[in-house]
């Protein structure tokens, strides 16, 4: 293997090279930086990288630790002390984190090096990364298409071999959907499994930090690092953290996997449907028992999600008042003008749209009809999953109804963009865990391969089982080994 091949390694492969002292953490970081310089101008995944700081960490890295010396890319809404944290928003341009999120402390405790700030939809609001105020991120498989979102920078970087692994956040699918569209593995933990301390809040009852990686095994290593109770986050669960790598390699005999009949809907791309059905067959051949189940309130999940998520966002984003941090309007004529213009100048269109919707559904006279009703339907959705998980250990579906769409294709129609979350956002409403793994390709009209993702959902705190199933499936296929042909760009 040459130094040029280094960035293509998985976290597990890199770990083994580091442990055998075949390369040093500094060499790995250097090789990564060189490939970023060559490839990222075409992709646009990184907002910034602080190479000097990362190199200083690499030089004293302890490679005996589980992630010793391995650079991990960070979505630009997780605070790393001293680094920018803008949420890809103009309102936080120039903001530098005065402290580190718990997940960053935990990653460092396992030896990893947080490296790079990854592009995203502004405040994680979006499904294509087109709502970034900073730059466009392109899908490495077809540069005319979106990488998905909101963790699009994290996903595109891992897919393009310009990150070994990344942290993202998933509020309604923002890890799983970009992982699917970019052809990598994306994992959303159960609500409360990972501390949100130091994460800029979008919708606090739905947000979870998770991983974007090349393989399921890599994902378990990141989860081993970041999972666990944190007294700084009152919603963090005080439950023991198992070794998530432990079940890998076990077969699927005796495991029941549910096919929700409500997910067999019109409007799913035929290539997605056939790839997912082939994956279902494969899971059966691996020993799993496939069972039809029902999630009767599926059709209401998107409505519930966009009412609750925007309501929570409108409250969370009230903190951006131009006083303590962030952008502040000049020459204001009074307090109201100060707030209204600071926020008008700082927020982008989608964020404004969601603040308006969220404020409306919480406002006097409409609270009961929208917000309270949505919370009740959320409870029914949660009960649907609880009943399904009495019969099965996991549920299977497409991650996204279509492969990556074209840049600009859905930006003028927010409702169409919201409907792209149909298979993912119920998991956030129910607080359960989920993963997207590569399960095939569609072909675009210009002959490009477009990745398809298989979603597996598991009950709350049953992460280890979902990793076991996802790993068994992954290892029985070659989909995760495919890489986009971006060498032409890099050359």
């Amino acid at each position, binding site marked *: 293997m040459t130094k040029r091949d280094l960035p293509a390694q998985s976290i597990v492969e890199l770990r083994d090279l580091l442990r055998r002292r075949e390369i040093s953490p500094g060499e790995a970081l250097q090789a990564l930086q060189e490939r970023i310089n060559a490839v990222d101008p075409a992709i646009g995944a990184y907002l910034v990288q602080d190479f000097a700081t990362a190199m200083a960490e690499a030089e004293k890295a302890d490679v005996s630790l589980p992630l010793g010396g391995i650079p991990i890319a960070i979505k630009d809404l997780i605070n790393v002390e001293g680094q920018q944290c803008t949420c890809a928003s103009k309102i936080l341009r*120039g*903001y*530098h984190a*005065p*402290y580190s999120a718990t997940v960053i402390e935990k990653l460092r405790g396992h030896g990893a090096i947080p490296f790079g700030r990854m592009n995203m939809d502004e405040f994680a609001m979006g499904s294509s990364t087109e709502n970034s105020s900073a730059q466009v991120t392109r899908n490495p498989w077809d540069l005319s298409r979106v990488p998905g979102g909101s963790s699009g920078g994290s996903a595109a970087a891992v897919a393009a071999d310009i990150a070994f692994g990344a942290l993202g956040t998933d509020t309604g699918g923002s890890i799983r959907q970009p992982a699917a569209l970019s052809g990598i593995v994306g994992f959303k933990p159960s*609500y*409360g499994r990972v501390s949100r301390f130091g994460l800029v809040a979008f919708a606090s*009852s739905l947000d979870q930090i998770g991983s974007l990686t090349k393989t399921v095994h890599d994902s378990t290593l990141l989860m081993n690092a970041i999972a666990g109770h944190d*007294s700084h986050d*009152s*919603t963090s*669960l005080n439950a023991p953290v198992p070794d998530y790598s432990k079940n890998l390699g076990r077969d699927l005999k005796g495991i029941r996997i549910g096919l929700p009949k409500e997910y067999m809907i019109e409007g799913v791309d035929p290539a997605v449907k056939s790839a997912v059905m082939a994956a279902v067959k494969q899971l059966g051949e691996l020993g799993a028992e496939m069972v039809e189940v029902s999630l009767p*309130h599926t059709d*209401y999940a998107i*409505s*519930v999600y*966009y009412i609750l998520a925007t309501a929570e966002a*409108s409250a969370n984003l009230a903190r951006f*008042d*131009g*006083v*303590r*941090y*962030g952008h*502040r309007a000049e020459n204001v004529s*009074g*307090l*109201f*003008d*100060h707030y*209204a*213009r600071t*926020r*008008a100048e700082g*927020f982008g269109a989608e964020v*404004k*749209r969601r*603040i*308006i*919707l969220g*404020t*409306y559904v919480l*406002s006097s006279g*409409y609270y009961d*009809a*929208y917000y309270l*009703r949505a*919370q*009740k*339907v*959320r*409870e*029914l959705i*949660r009960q649907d999953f609880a009943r399904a998980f009495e019969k099965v250990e996991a549920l299977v579906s497409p991650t996204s109804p279509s492969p990556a769409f074209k840049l600009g294709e859905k930006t003028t*129609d*927010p*409702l169409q963009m919201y409907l792209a979350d149909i298979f993912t956002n119920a998991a956030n409403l129910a*607080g*359960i865990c989920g993963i997207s793994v590569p399960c095939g390709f569609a072909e675009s009209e210009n002959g490009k391969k477009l990745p398809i993702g298989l979603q597996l959902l598991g009950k*709350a705190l049953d992460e280890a089982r979902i990793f076991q199933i996802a790993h068994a499936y992954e290892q029985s296929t070659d989909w995760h080994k495919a890489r986009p042909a971006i060498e032409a760009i890099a050359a």
Partner: protein
Amino acid sequence: MASELDVAYVAQLARLQLTIEETELFQKQLGHVLKYAEKLKEVNVEGVEAAAHAVPMFNVFRADEPCDWFAADEALSNAPRQANNLFIVTKVVE
């Protein structure tokens, strides 16, 4: 329900200045979203508890003990305007 949304009024509540173009665009786009959300009216929610969280959450207390946190200069490190170790605010009382 959807026709009752008055974007200009809600923008005032949200302390968010919108242009006329934004107001008209959001009125139309959010009208579509609210119309889609009307299907929630079909659901029988009688006797259903509202779920604020997916997992039952109760008050969580920690020991009420002082601990190290930001010093003034750290807390002020991102302030757009500051003086004498204080944030400068826009005049609140006339």
